[in-house]
């Protein structure tokens, strides 16, 4: 489908916002479920974009910037794939191929992020100069410039895809054979695991593995909703923390106080 001038401007604005958030990580406009929805909202294709956003969000759950490491770029993946979905005009049917397109885009976005973060190194040197002059205004100016660079990181590719137009995008999508799109959506069901694996690798320790097993078994009971599982998880965590503290108190004091009375142990300590 073709977009009006106003719609194009709004899409580029949404892309700019997502690009800023890609680094700020505060309001989360770059998260797929929000970014795709916003693109859908301004182009009038809300439903397919919401579904795309939800599917991509599942894949991106474990993607986060930790320390200096840069995660696959959710911002470019969501914005560009949502625009392609809208331009393709296939509605809900186009969602699974849009997901497949999103993954290489996340890689491309990763490279753009690294470039922008390197450019920002130059900017902080300008800030050093501003600090010597004691100029607050110049620091503020350079900070805003740096944020805008991050916005442009997504806004420019988005504008390029829009300029390319619906024609090439549509023919690209329709030239994909069904064995490929079906296979890609099967792959899409599995790639979710990568994000989870990243997080587990960070968090796992001998102590917390039993809770993993519990979670897996509880989830197999399909009657329990996600909120229910969350409540069970919170309860288990609280119970464990309370109990382990009680155990720690009586063991810690050794022979002097094996009364099993936490209040008594506390009094002995002071």
């Amino acid at each position, binding site marked *: 489908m073709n977009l009006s001038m106003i719609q194009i401007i709004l899409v580029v604005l949404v892309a700019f916002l997502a690009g800023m958030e890609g680094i*700020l*990580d*505060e*309001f*989360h406009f770059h998260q797929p*479920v*929000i970014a795709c*929805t916003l693109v859908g909202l301004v182009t009038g294709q809300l*439903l397919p974009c*919401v*579904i795309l*956003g*939800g599917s991509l*969000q*599942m894949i991106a759950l474990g993607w*986060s910037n*930790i320390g*200096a490491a840069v995660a696959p770029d959710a911002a470019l993946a969501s914005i560009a794939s949502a625009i392609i979905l809208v331009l393709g005009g296939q509605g809900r049917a186009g969602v699974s191929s849009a997901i497949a397109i999103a*993954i290489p885009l996340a*890689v491309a976005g*990763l490279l753009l992020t690294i470039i922008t973060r*390197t450019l*920002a190194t130059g900017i*902080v040197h300008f800030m*050093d100069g501003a*600090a010597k*002059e*004691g100029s*607050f205004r110049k*620091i503020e100016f350079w*900070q805003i410039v*740096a944020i805008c660079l991050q916005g442009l990181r997504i806004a420019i590719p988005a504008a390029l895809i829009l300029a390319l137009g619906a024609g090439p995008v549509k023919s690209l999508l329709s030239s994909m054979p069904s064995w490929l799109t079906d*296979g*890609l959506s*099967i*792959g899409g069901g*599995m*790639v979710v*695991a*990568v994000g989870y*694996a*990243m997080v*587990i*690798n*960070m*968090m*796992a320790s001998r102590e*917390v593995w039993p*809770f*993993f097993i*519990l*979670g*897996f078994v509880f*989830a*197999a009971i399909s009657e329990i909703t*996600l909120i229910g*599982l*969350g409540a069970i*998880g919170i309860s288990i965590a609280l119970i464990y923390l309370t109990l382990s*503290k009680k155990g720690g108190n009586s063991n810690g004091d050794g022979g002097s106080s094996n009364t099993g009375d936490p209040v008594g142990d506390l009094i002995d300590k002071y």
Partner: protein
Amino acid sequence: MVDQIKLSKKDRISVWWRSTFLQGSWNYERMQNGGWAFTLIPALKKLYKTKEERSEALTRHLEFFNTHPYVASPIIGVTLALEEEKANGAPIDDVTIQGVKVGMMGPLAGVGDPVFWYTVKPIVGALAASLAISGSIIGPILYFVVWNAIRMSFMWYTQELGYKAGSKITEDLSGGILQDITKGASILGMFILAALIERWVTVDFSAVKISSIKQSSGAYIDWSKLPSGAAGIKEALVQQSSGLSLTEYKVTTLQDNLNQLIPGLAALLITFLCMWLLKKNVSPIVIILGLFVFGVVMHVLGVM
């Protein structure tokens, strides 16, 4: 005695708002330093009036800084308290301030990552995503509102906490509370991750038919003997609800067999494989692309 300069609530709100842009000039040299200086500007403006003082303060705050963007807030609070004392003549040097910043950023990042990135975000994200996949606009709205309510209140509350407690906060937090929060978040995180793997990683071997057994008559609905029209539909539904099979042949797929063993086993194995590959330093992007290729190949071969 000169009047003491105090930071008003308005100043602190202004700092809190600016801390939203902490990571804006994230760079490979000193990471969040530009955003950190930018965040403190409303306070520095109030506390220091001469050009020399301002220049010193800005240079001091352009040093290396990096932590989780939300748990930077208590550090900002403590720094505000220190700067306020310094401006009022207390003997606090640059090394002390930098020391407090560096001393807090490591342990606090160790709390922020598991709590926000590994626990709150996957839970809220999965909830919103499952709503959105079914086409509900509530999904994105829920994510946006819940996430930002948690984030903004956390940042304001901990910044105030840091400001009021001053440098004491480091001692407070290094005690049991910090460890409890981290451990609690890891427990909840592991529990939820396992649940998400079971629910949302789909590895389906239904395409593989293990066996196809012809059932004895009376175990399935005999479509040729049903009355025609609506009566036939009714009869069929009645028979199905009484337990009769829809087809003459009972097909068992590989997936049915796996489900009897452990539902979600294949998803679990795929996750373990990914963890192993990541530990071998295989890039996540390579694994993702590999899984897509695997999906296509298996589909073409008729396995999935």
